[in-house]
């Protein structure tokens, strides 16, 4: 059972639909207790970084940190991945989880912002062993839509280029994040979600 964290920003329908398509059961909650005890967590996200502030005030942030410490598989999508960094200049007052170093910043490019559409991901050296990106060839296309991007730091498993190189995916032990939308990235995206489900199933079996 995968627990989708609802923080009233955007909609969870697409992610849930993709999990259902993969035969994966899921439940939606904003209750810190249920988050703490979840078998696996997914934090979907669209919109402004400040929406994650709600996670801190509701106690979900602490519950997520506790779950991660216990080894619970955790996948953050889009703003959900950005939240795993220290913070974002989009909402400087709002703290991220600080699981990865550095802050997210707005694209510094003459290209159009937001970065909307299909772009390619490529593994970093560390990303060659990625569980999440298993069987996903380098240069596969995935769907992005965002104006802020995370820095390429330790823990980044894949990068993308849009005027500058930024973090497309992160991975450290049981923590995973993707800047793109796997639920909207066709077969490549479904493969990535399945990899997470498979990892979670292995964890739960242990």
């Amino acid at each position: 059972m995968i627990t989708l964290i609802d923080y009233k920003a955007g909609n969870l329908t697409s992610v849930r639909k993709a999990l259902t398509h993969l035969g994966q059961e899921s439940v939606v909650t904003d209750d810190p207790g249920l988050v703490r005890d979840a078998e696996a967590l997914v934090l979907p996200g669209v919109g402004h970084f400040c929406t994650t502030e709600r996670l801190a005030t509701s106690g979900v942030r602490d519950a997520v940190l506790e779950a991660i410490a216990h080894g619970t598989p955790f996948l953050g999508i889009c703003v959900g991945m950005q939240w795993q960094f220290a913070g974002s200049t989009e909402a400087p007052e709002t703290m991220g989880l600080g699981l990865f170093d550095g802050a997210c910043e707005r694209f510094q490019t003459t290209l159009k912002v937001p970065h909307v559409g299909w772009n390619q991901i490529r593994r970093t050296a560390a990303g060659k062993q990625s569980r999440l990106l298993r069987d996903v060839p380098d240069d596969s296309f995935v769907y992005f839509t965002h104006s802020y991007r995370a820095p390429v730091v330790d823990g980044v498993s894949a990068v993308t280029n849009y005027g500058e190189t930024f973090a497309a995916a992160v991975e450290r032990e049981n923590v995973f994040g993707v800047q793109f939308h796997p639920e909207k990235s066709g077969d490549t995206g479904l493969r990535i979600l399945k990899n997470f489900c498979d990892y979670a199933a292995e964890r739960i079996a242990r």
Partner: protein
Amino acid sequence: MSTGGLSTGITKRIIACLDVTNGRVVKGVQFVDLVDAGDPAELAHLHAKSGADEIVLLDITATSDARPILIDVVRRTARQLFVPFTVGGGVRSLDDASALFDAGADKISINSAAIKTPGIITEIAERFGSQAVIVAIDAKRKVGSAASAEGAVPAEVYLAGGRTATGRDAEAWAREAESRGAGEILLTSMDCDGTRNGFDCQLTAAVAKAVNIPVIASGGAGSGDHFVEVFKGGCADAALAASIFHFGIHDVRELKAQLQREGIPVRLPC
């Protein structure tokens, strides 16, 4: 870490559009003379399989009939669709938009309501994010108009599926929509729509240069060359077409192969 060879930037998107009325996909010429083209869920799936980067479903009579979009059609179409899915036609309120997102839409497209009450753009963008809001502009060139030396193309915005003139200038309205929180502009040339004689590249380029958000060109696609033109000369970020795909004149795969040969970056289906 080496990123050598990783292409800089994003691909040009090919968007398959399903014009729907009474739950069926239809196609007409310049918004009239509609003929049946099939089931929306089936066609959406087919287009995604053949490499369409996104699917747009427009309920083309919802506004003129003053009724809400058929939610069950949206839900059924979204169920097996794992590429971005936009729904438009008859979105008049935040509640209308919420119901569509709940039914599986990733973005909504607003047209008439955005002109009448522009605040709705901001309202939906603040709740669901700008990436979820497309402002659709149906534009018609002013009679006898040509591009000015600065590249401006006088064109008037129409609403209610092309039935009512607004007196608004297309470029100015696109800029306002962006400032109010739109994430993309869907620009339909009413002069070209349904003609299969090509996109209005001048108008598309003028609007694309006027805003800093992606512009989707629509209206007039009839051959692969037309897409090449609108991506090169028209500066479009994406291009939308309906009928040319429905009747199998050519599929998205074939179109993308041509675009790639012409040096336009596209996502090739695997």
